[in-house]
């Protein structure tokens, strides 16, 4: 074959791959190696940065004098830096790492131009650094979830387009045959996120729409980043890894189908429930409430599908680091979503709106479901990419227990405290603050719960450090670690699980 011909046959994306399935997976892993490790490393660094700002913001809630002399760590900036570091730093990098890797494995396409992915990824992270710096120096916007100064938005959008296009093209040139449920979710999310981000930036910051439309767009965006970006990516990871590790098929194709399309249909409407009681036409809010309640359908369907897949394998789930986190995430998804549907009702919103209850709910969704799922994904992905094993089962256990207990404590504390706060706020006999130290006030009743959130945050910090140390050890550790035999499991499985 002439060099020219062989060049063209090499770049033909639909070139037949004549390798056995496991070899194909190994080739995909090797081709995804550098970008996926890069994204995961960025993600974990952002996780630590975001945790730091979270602790600062949380302490300021009950001890306002904490670090009060530092202008760039005032509450408004620290909180926004926390949110953006977690949303655009940790979550998106984790999605780019784990989500694209799952997509690549399922597509078994010839991976091309992974250098593009690396360049786009570096630009994305540079943009987030500039954005966080802008927030800390006071250039933040007043739009929740879009606090980064609007000047970085084009850079973020452009880097995303390179990354997202890459994922979509990979699907275009996939190995022919059945398209698995994880691929639906990832493909959908790759289209949904840029649509959300560009529309929100345009309608709120670049060509501002009038009045309440901005608020509507804001909550449509903020809720859908969770609902149409993190949720499908998390579910795709669960749908891939749960049957993969257990070696069982997903319970029902029909349930997967129903779950995906009902999510795509209803989630987009749900964000309006953040504006219940606001100056928005009644029908819009009612539609938002109905869509929020309708979210019970995809959630129940997905829960049954996952439960029936995993049922009877408790031992294997408990011993696999991946599945421990994944199943924790799947259960949290069900619970958090039921809470969300319930909170959207007008009578419940009357109490929970503007309280810590909402904050607890947000962490229920983004951390207990999404972040835990991504941890599970990283625990499965890294050994395959590096051809090494996790150095320490103890550190994985520390990560699981501190993260699991920490987030549990945070959700219980914030939701109980938030409910009490809501009842107190609605009671005209209880003042907000009072000069008389004996009087019961809204603030005084809330402070112990805020304090419990800080304690929970410390637990999470310990878990994240354990994760970081284990990860760094695996990445740059001594050679002995690299040749460790057999998978790192959290118990004796008699050969089950991985």
């Amino acid at each position, binding site marked *: 074959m002439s060099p020219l011909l062989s060049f063209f046959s090499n770049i033909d994306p639909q070139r037949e791959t*004549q*390798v*056995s*399935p*496991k*070899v194909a*997976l*190994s*080739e995909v892993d*090797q081709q995804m190696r550098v970008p996926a490790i890069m994204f995961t490393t960025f993600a974990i660094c952002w996780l630590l940065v975001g945790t730091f700002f979270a602790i600062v913001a949380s302490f300021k809630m009950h001890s306002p004098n904490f670090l009060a002399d530092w202008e760039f760590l005032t509450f408004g900036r620290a909180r926004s830096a926390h949110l953006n570091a977690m949303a655009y730093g940790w979550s998106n990098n984790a999605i780019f790492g784990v989500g694209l890797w799952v997509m690549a*494995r*399922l597509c078994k396409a010839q991976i091309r131009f992974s250098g593009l992915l690396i360049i786009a990824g570096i630009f994305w992270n540079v943009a987030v650094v500039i954005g966080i710096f802008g927030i800390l120096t006071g250039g933040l916007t007043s739009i929740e979830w879009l606090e980064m100064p609007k000047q970085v938005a084009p850079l973020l959008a452009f880097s995303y387009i390179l990354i997202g296009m890459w994922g979509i093209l990979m699907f275009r040139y996939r190995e022919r045959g059945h398209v*698995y*449920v*994880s691929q639906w979710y990832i493909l959908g999310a790759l289209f949904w996120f840029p649509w959300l981000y560009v529309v929100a930036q345009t309608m709120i910051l670049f060509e501002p729409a009038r009045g309440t439309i901005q608020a509507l767009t804001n909550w449509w965006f903020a809720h859908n980043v969770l609902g149409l970006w993190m949720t499908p990516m998390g579910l795709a990871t669960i*749908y*891939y890894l*749960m*049957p*993969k*590790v*257990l*070696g069982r*098929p*997903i*319970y*029902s*194709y*029909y*349930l*997967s189908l*129903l779950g995906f399309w009902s999510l795509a249909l209803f989630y987009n409407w749900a964000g309006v429930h953040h504006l219940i009681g606001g*100056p*928005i*036409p*009644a*029908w819009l*809010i*009612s*539609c938002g*409430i*109905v869509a929020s*309640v*309708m979210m*019970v*359908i995809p959630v*129940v*369907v997905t829960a*049954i599908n996952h439960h*029936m897949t995993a049922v009877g394998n408790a031992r294997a789930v408990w011993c696999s680091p991946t599945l421990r986190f994944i199943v924790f995430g799947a259960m949290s998804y069900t619970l958090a979503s039921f809470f969300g549907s319930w909170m959207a009702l*007008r009578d419940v919103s009357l109490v929970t709106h503007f309280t810590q209850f909402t904050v607890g709910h947000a962490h229920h969704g983004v951390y207990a479901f999404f972040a835990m799922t991504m941890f599970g994904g990283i625990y499965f992905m890294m*050994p*395959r990419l590096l*051809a090494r094993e996790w150095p320490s089962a103890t550190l994985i256990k520390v990560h699981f227990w501190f993260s699991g207990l920490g987030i549990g404590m945070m959700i219980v504390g914030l939701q109980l405290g938030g409910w009490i706060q809501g009842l107190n706020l609605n009671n005209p006999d209880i003042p907000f603050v009072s000069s008389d130290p004996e009087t019961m006030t809204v603030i005084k009743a809330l402070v112990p719960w805020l304090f419990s959130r800080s304690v929970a945050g410390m637990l999470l910090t310990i878990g994240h450090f354990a994760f970081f140390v284990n990860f760094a050890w695996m990445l740059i550790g001594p050679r002995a670690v*690299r*040749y460790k035999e057999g*998978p790192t499991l959290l118990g004796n499985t008699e050969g089950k699980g*991985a």
Partner: protein
Amino acid sequence: MSDTPKERLPGDSAPYEDDDIHIVHSQLLREKDEPSEGFSPVPMLLLFLFGGLVFWGGVYIANYSGDFRWDIYNPEWKPGMTEKVAEKPPLMVTGERLFKNNCQACHQANGAGVPGAFPPLAGSAWVVGDEARIVKILLRGLTGPIEVEGNSYNGNMPSYGENGAGWNDYQIASVSTFVRASWDNGAPEITEEAVAAIRGETADKSGAWSGEEILGAHPL
């Protein structure tokens, strides 16, 4: 990959065999097959549950949609319900608010004005008596030299009508009534209808009034 025992050169097109994997990736050997899907049917009970949910959703939207109108904010609104027209506060209440926000800076809280710069409203013959004077001045503004209570002024009173702040009849009536009733001025209120009539009469007027024009039409 440094761990690979048999180095493969770039461009080596010999396909991998499963045997190679045994050495290269012991991990892949313990890896289960790629996920597949079972085809268990959707439980009947679920379909009833979802049917119930959709039915509830329909009923909820039918009851709380405010007829899908953009201007209905009350979820309890029903098509037959008599719309509660937003009640306007009394003229004096609105008038006081408007005066504080718009007039007080020049004419002062006690209505005494600033000698030599802004004419007084308290005890001024211009504002009491014929109601057309104050309304016309508010609608179009006033410019040039005037004399009030023995002192001369030469300033600019801005317009609050169409070519100025764009106030409606209710707002003009409110602030005129407030000015006429405060500081022992003791003049009767000006109704919205009266303002509307004067606005109609002066529709052709362009620019601000001069003092002579006002006094010529409505002498003190």
